[in-house]
């Protein structure tokens, strides 16, 4: 009778609490405690019923969990083992873990080179990936600091709209709740007698903050009418600027001297707010002119409730009809064509995405290579330890336990690498941010703990990846068989297929980075090969901004004075000034009339106002006629009869004087005075480096008024290497001669060219660096695996050499093995590149994503390095004395 009752009882025993207890109890005492519990459960069941007994068991399990876990931890930590258990198998779960950790630490300490290589390579990958993640996070993953930013979009191209167009459309944008217009509007700020300083800002219509759904943290936002004709201009300042100005709430209502005129501060934006980039610290209004043709405004709007930016076709259609009816557009500048809305996020940070994604992917690849490398090293260790593991297995160690040891070792390496990576990320994220083409975001990149968290997560993933391959090898391997094989040896030795697979993967990954870098090198070389039409070496560049309140005659006089003072600086050959220098975007264009060419009337061309030595200073070649000289006398503002001298470029001649004779021809547009062409200069990349040559006219400052409040001075030094040195003296000269001018920035013409070459250059530098790293890591991997391969088959070689095979054949064979692996890796990598190179499309110039030359360069580099890495262990194997090997085994 008892037996069936027992069975019934056992069946009614709740499994879950028993399993929990089984998990938590130390192995040595598990059986007896569980038996006691079962017995007591039976007693309870007999006395108070099964339901109550089950409840009792649950209570036991739940209340025991915490003390048992603490107990396990304590035993593991202290290493305490009761006397009674001295001859019992196993300890607690944690105790094993601690023992394994100690054992792994001892093993790692005993192999410092392996440990160092593993920790360093993984640490580099983790640190790099975490740093790039930290930089990319605010740009790509964090929400923008505006309410429902997905409802906000910019219209057509940025910087394309005029005040006239905006004011015509204002309040009537179909499908939009509010639309604002803004353009760059850096201002000078003067406090007391201190030199003016430049505050990066934007000039905006009053709707901007309504569109963004952003509210000031103190004070008010802009109100309708703030930008009306005759209204007093008002400004909102950033939290950072407010702090610099004293951080007092009383700032609201005070007047700051901005651009030489008082402007009332009406609000302070909250900390963390930015628009359109983090460098901007002031948002101010100015009266909008209904006839204002001079634009460069960007329109930004919030769709009406229920609308969707991606589904605004009919509204956009209506809008193009409205502007088409009202305005006449020149072909090529027709705003009724190519009308598109760009979501705000894409408009603000979209341009940085390709560079960030490319860098992030490259860093991730480096991490993968590092993982493959460490996995290969560990796999080599597992195979090297085959005999030890086999003996342990024969003595009763289960595969699970052996696996646990492997994992513990990888975790230790991962902890080291994670710490190193977090340190590297903290130290290096600013360097990487500076090297990335992300503009103001780099200066505002701030370290936060998410980078550490990222490093930690990446380290965990890396460890899992690393341990995967050796674990598979261990699981599949025939441990006990190893013992017998080790005794007898084998002609072919063990396979090592996994190891070879890892090398192929490493080479393939390295190929991805190397060919991406090669593509960018080709692209950047193409960009630098473009002749910008100027001599960039030995030219210093100084950007100044004066207050808009300054009259154009006064500004002109100050510019002349500054040119003279700068020319008298030691080491300076010539100085020129212009409202806008080449390679920095389009700038202003005016309508034009050309004598004898009525077609010109509806076209616009760039115009530049320059000082006499401008062409000489920038090395712009004269093609015909003359440059400006002393015979060109200044013309007063009210004088509309004296003829102005104009210098045009070759593209201008080609477009407006098809017969090629431009010198002496009369033209008009822009100014009331008659104009005559006196000279022709070579084409210069006035806007962007890659633009085709555009027609440009140059006017002499003094004959044409110096409007706009900015000026750029170019200073050619007698020695090309002095360009950067002269900048300090130049800056001081500006402060002495024209304290009302704020120095906006100083640079050199070479840097201007670098900037014009664009993000591709910076991404290229980073990827070149990373591909060098990838090649080194790949070489380490190949070296390690080929060393193992050679060592495994040492006995095999020894026999063959003893039988007369020349040592050189051994070397050839081993190098051939290495070369074959590298070749397969390169082929796979090339396939991957075809897919991944699309990420780079927007960074490439004059080269497709599938470029044979770039592929060939990357392949050759990888192949040479791979074969070199394989030849070291091969040579060693080829020169070994067979007698020694045979005796050793």
């Amino acid at each position: 009778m008892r037996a069936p009752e027992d069975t019934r009882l056992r069946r009614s025993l709740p499994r879950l609490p028993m399993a929990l207890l089984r998990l938590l109890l130390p192995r040595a005492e598990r059986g007896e405690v569980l038996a006691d519990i079962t017995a007591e459960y039976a007693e309870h069941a007999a006395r108070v019923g099964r339901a109550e007994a089950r409840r009792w068991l649950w209570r036991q399990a739940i209340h025991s969990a915490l003390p048992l876990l603490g107990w396990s931890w304590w035993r593991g930590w202290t290493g305490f083992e009761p006397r009674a258990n001295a001859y019992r198998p196993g300890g607690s779960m944690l105790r094993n873990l601690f023992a394994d950790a100690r054992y792994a630490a001892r093993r790692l300490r005993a192999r410092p080179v392996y440990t160092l290589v593993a920790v360093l390579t993984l640490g580099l990958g983790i640190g790099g990936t975490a740093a790039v993640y930290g930089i990319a996070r605010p740009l790509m993953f964090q929400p923008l600091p505006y309410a429902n930013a997905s409802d906000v979009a910019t219209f057509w191209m940025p910087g394309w709209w005029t005040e006239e167009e905006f004011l015509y459309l204002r309040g009537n944008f179909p499908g939009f709740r509010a639309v604002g217009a803004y353009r760059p509007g850096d201002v000078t700020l003067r406090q007391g007698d201190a030199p003016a300083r430049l505050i990066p800002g934007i000039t905006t219509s009053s709707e901007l903050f309504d569109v963004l759904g952003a509210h000031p943290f103190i004070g008010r936002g802009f109100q309708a009418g703030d930008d009306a004709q005759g209204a007093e201009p008002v400004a909102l300042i950033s939290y950072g600027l407010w702090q610099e100005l004293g951080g007092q709430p009383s700032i609201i209502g005070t007047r700051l001297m901005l651009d030489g005129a008082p402007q009332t501060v009406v609000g302070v934006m909250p900390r963390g707010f930015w628009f359109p980039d983090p460098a901007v610290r002031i948002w101010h209004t100015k009266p909008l002119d209904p006839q204002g043709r001079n634009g460069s405004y960007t329109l930004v709007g919030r769709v009406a409730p229920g609308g969707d930016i991606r589904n605004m076709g009919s509204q956009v259609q209506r809008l193009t009809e409205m502007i088409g009816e009202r305005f006449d557009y020149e072909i090529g500048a027709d705003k009724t064509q190519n009308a598109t809305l760009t979501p705000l996020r894409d408009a603000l940070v979209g341009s940085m995405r390709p560079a960030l994604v490319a860098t992030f992917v490259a860093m991730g690849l480096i991490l993968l290579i590092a993982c493959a490398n460490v996995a290969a090293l560990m796999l080599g260790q597992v195979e090297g330890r085959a005999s030890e593991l086999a003996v342990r297995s024969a003595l009763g160690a289960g595969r699970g336990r052996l696996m646990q040891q492997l994992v513990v070792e990888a975790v230790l390496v991962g902890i080291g690498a994670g710490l190193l990576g977090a340190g590297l990320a903290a130290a290096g994220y600013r360097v990487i941010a500076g090297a990335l083409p992300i503009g103001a975001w780099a200066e505002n990149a701030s370290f936060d703990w998410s980078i550490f968290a990222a490093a930690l997560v990446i380290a965990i993933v890396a460890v899992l990846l690393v341990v995967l391959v050796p674990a598979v090898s261990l699981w599949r391997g025939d441990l006990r068989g190893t013992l017998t094989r080790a005794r007898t040896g084998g002609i072919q030795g063990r396979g090592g297929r996994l190891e070879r697979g890892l090398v192929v993967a490493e080479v393939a990954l390295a190929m991805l980075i190397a060919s991406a870098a090669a593509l960018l090198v080709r692209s950047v070389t193409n960009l630098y090969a473009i002749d910008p039409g100027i001599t960039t070496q030995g030219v210093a560049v100084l950007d100044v901004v004066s207050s808009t309140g300054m009259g154009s005659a006064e500004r002109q006089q100050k510019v002349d004075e500054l040119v003279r003072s700068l020319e008298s600086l030691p080491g300076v050959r010539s100085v020129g000034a212009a409202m806008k220098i080449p390679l920095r975007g389009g700038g202003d264009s005016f309508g034009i009339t050309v004598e004898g060419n009525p077609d010109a009337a509806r076209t616009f061309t760039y115009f530049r106002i320059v000082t006499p030595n401008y062409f000489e200073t920038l090395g712009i070649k004269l093609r015909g006629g003359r440059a400006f000289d002393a015979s060109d006398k200044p013309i007063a503002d009210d004088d509309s009869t004296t003829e102005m001298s104009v210098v045009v470029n070759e593209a201008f001649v080609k477009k407006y004087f098809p017969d090629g004779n431009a010198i002496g021809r009369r033209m008009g547009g822009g100014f009331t005075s008659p104009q005559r062409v006196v000279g022709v200069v070579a084409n210069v990349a006035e806007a962007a480096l890659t633009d085709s040559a555009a027609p440009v006219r140059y006017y002499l400052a003094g004959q044409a008024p110096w409007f706009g409040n900015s000026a750029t001075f170019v200073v050619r030094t007698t020695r090309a290497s002095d360009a950067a040195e002269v900048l300090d003296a130049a800056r001081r000269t500006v402060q002495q001669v024209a304290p009302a001018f704020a120095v906006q920035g100083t640079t050199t013409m070479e840097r201007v060219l670098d900037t014009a070459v664009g993000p591709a250059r910076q991404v290229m530098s980073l990827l070149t660096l990373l591909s060098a790293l990838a090649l080194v890591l790949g070489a380490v991997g190949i070296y390690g695996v080929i060393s193992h391969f050679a060592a495994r088959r040492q006995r095999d070689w020894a026999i063959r050499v003893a039988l007369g095979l020349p040592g050189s054949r051994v070397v050839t064979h081993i190098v051939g093995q290495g070369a074959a692996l590298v070749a397969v890796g390169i082929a796979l990598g090339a396939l991957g590149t075809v897919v991944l190179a699309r990420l780079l499309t927007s960074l490439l110039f004059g080269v497709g994503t599938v470029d044979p030359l770039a592929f060939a360069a990357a392949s050759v580099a990888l192949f040479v390095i791979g074969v070199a890495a394989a030849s070291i262990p091969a040579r060693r194997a080829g020169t070994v004395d067979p007698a020694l090997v045979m005796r050793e085994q």
Partner: protein
Amino acid sequence: MTDTSSITDSPFAPLGVLEEQVVVAVLRTRGEAYGMQARREIERVTGRELSIGAVYATLDRLEAKGLLTSSRVVDDSSSRRLFAVTPEGARALADTRAMRERLWHGVNVRELLALARA
């Protein structure tokens, strides 16, 4: 009156409440002091349920301190860990009790009970 002058100066006294209960239970179940038995003894006397985990963790800690010792008793079907109090454990328990007595000295139990009933 108990003689409270015979304090042995054990560094482990006073024992924690559960530690004290466990050592006493090991003494009371002399010869039968398995973990489970000790737990049941405490439950029986105090009338409170006690978790196995807490008892095992305490037994281990006491053994690590040298207040208990364990040995393995093997019978035909099973093997169990049996606990015994060491001389150091006995000293610690005696001291703990002595300290408690001194603490209680001067407390009028009758008044205490009256207060408790109020």
